[in-house]
């Protein structure tokens, strides 16, 4: 499967601040999916991007797929304690391959 690199591995955020996690590949991706896993929970699908330059929003979350379809980002504005968890990007190339994940903690 295709490899995706995800950074940063850890993100410690002050409540109310914004942050971004990035997912990068050396090859062109046909699609990218984002999942969130709460502590002690299971991955939950957030969104799928398939088009070059695509931008999708879910309330305070903004997902972007790069023009070259080699990178993607997840930007969260005004972080809340409910945003705590690990965010994974994943790409399907005959199987779903996950990035390493960004684990987010929030200080109130």
């Amino acid at each position: 499967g295709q490899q995706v690199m995800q950074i940063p591995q850890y993100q410690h955020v002050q409540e109310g601040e914004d942050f971004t996690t990035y997912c990068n590949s050396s090859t062109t991706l046909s699609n990218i999916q984002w999942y969130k896993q709460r502590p002690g929970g299971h991955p939950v699908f957030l969104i799928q991007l398939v088009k070059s330059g695509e931008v999708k929003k879910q309330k305070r979350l903004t997902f972007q797929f790069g023009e070259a379809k080699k990178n993607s980002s997840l930007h969260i504005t005004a972080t809340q304690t409910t945003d705590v968890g690990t965010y994974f990007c994943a790409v399907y190339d005959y199987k779903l391959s996950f990035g390493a994940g960004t684990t987010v903690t929030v200080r109130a």
Partner: protein
Amino acid sequence: DAMVIQNPRYQVTQFGKPVTLSCSQTLNHNVMYWYQQKSSQAPKLLFHYYDKDFNNEADTPDNFQSRRPNTSFCFLDIRSPGLGDAAMYLCATNDLSHQPQHFGDGTRLSIL
């Protein structure tokens, strides 16, 4: 409503004692997956079924086997668990391989 159900949530077994984890789904999806997830790591695909067609990952140890007797159920058998097999085991389903996957709550396996 739970759509992908894994039992049990927690499983303790002895070193070398066979153990079976189960997964059932009410979504009627044709693809079912088993992942292993260790602490602070991403899920690692072990194998998946497309209907009854079994697909094993190249680096999945022979110690891990799977059965899918029907659309709704899939089992993970670990023949001789070692200490390194302690992990969370996640089952997931989807209706087409590239579609979003629905995960169960997982079974956390401990080895004594």
